[in-house]
């Protein structure tokens, strides 16, 4: 049983993710996308980075890589799948999750710490938190603006599929606390079933005590339970 952290050409948060999971006692390994998923795969991370140089659209090429057919099959069998940053873009491009992450409203790459409000604490990725709890994660993206048709977003909200929204330190969700222009400040969503999720902020970068914060561990706990 191992969590496969898939490396595409240009992934760069793959080793951080393995390290964060390993430190939590979760067995995790790097898997090169051309090698396919190991038979014992019990979870999948699509890590951050710049797969295929963000050609065409961020995540577009990796989403069409053959290994994603295997990821889709596992996702249908209730294997947990988490896309982080570029992995979130890949998740949406491959239709594992709804919507799209596209160019920031600022048209700039943004690398900063943000506050997130936990919207639904009843998913494998947020069970470690309380609903309404505020956590602090880093973001580092140029294409993180969550875009989706308005009606579709309403459906997601009604179905409790929003994991996190960008907020201030007190949990207020406003236009000023939205770093990238995401619709309704959405920072992460789940797929049809909540064992599949994507998010632009980086939980793996706030999971090791040596780095000053472990706010992100709760998200990765989604794999510990699998």
């Amino acid at each position, binding site marked *: 049983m191992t969590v496969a952290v898939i490396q595409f050409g240009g992934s760069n948060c793959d080793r951080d993710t393995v390290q964060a999971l390993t430190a939590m006692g979760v067995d995790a390994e790097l898997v090169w996308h051309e090698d396919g998923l190991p038979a014992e795969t019990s979870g999948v991370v699509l890590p951050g980075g710049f797969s295929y140089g963000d050609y*065409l*659209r961020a995540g*577009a090429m990796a989403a*069409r890589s053959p290994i994603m057919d295997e990821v889709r099959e596992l996702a249908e069998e209730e294997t947990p799948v988490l896309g982080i940053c570029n992995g979130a873009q890949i998740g*949406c*491009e491959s239709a594992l999750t*709804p*919507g*799209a992450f*596209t*160019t*920031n*409203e*600022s*048209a700039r790459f943004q690398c900063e710490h943000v506050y997130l409000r936990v919207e639904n604490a009843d998913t494998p990725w947020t069970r470690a938190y309380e609903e309404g709890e505020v956590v602090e994660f880093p973001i580092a993206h140029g294409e993180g*603006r969550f*875009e*989706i*048709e308005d009606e579709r977003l309403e459906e997601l909200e009604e179905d409790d599929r929003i994991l996190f929204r960008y907020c201030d330190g007190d949990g207020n969700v406003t236009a000023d606390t939205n770093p990238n*222009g995401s619709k309704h400040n959405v920072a992460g969503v789940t797929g049809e079933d909540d064992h599949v999720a994507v998010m632009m902020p980086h939980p793996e970068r706030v999971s090791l005590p040596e780095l000053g914060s472990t706010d992100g561990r709760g998200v990765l706990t989604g794999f510990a339970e699998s």
Partner: protein
Amino acid sequence: MTAYTATVTVRLKSGVLDPEAETTQRSLERLGFELEDLRSADQFEIDLDAEDREDAEDRVTEMTERLLANPTLHDYEITIDEQ
């Protein structure tokens, strides 16, 4: 088989924010140009051999829907020309 060139234009759906186009517009205005609006689009030219125009269009439509455009963000247009 006939040789065709398909031109695929992929643009953002109306209402979807285009920060790069806005930045480009501002730069043009800074250069002293007057303009009402600016929209950007991606254009792809695809050379292919096909049975006929319809076959070419069907194949290019599938390419567009499976990769070149993202249905959440984009509308697209395809024109087919004999080479």
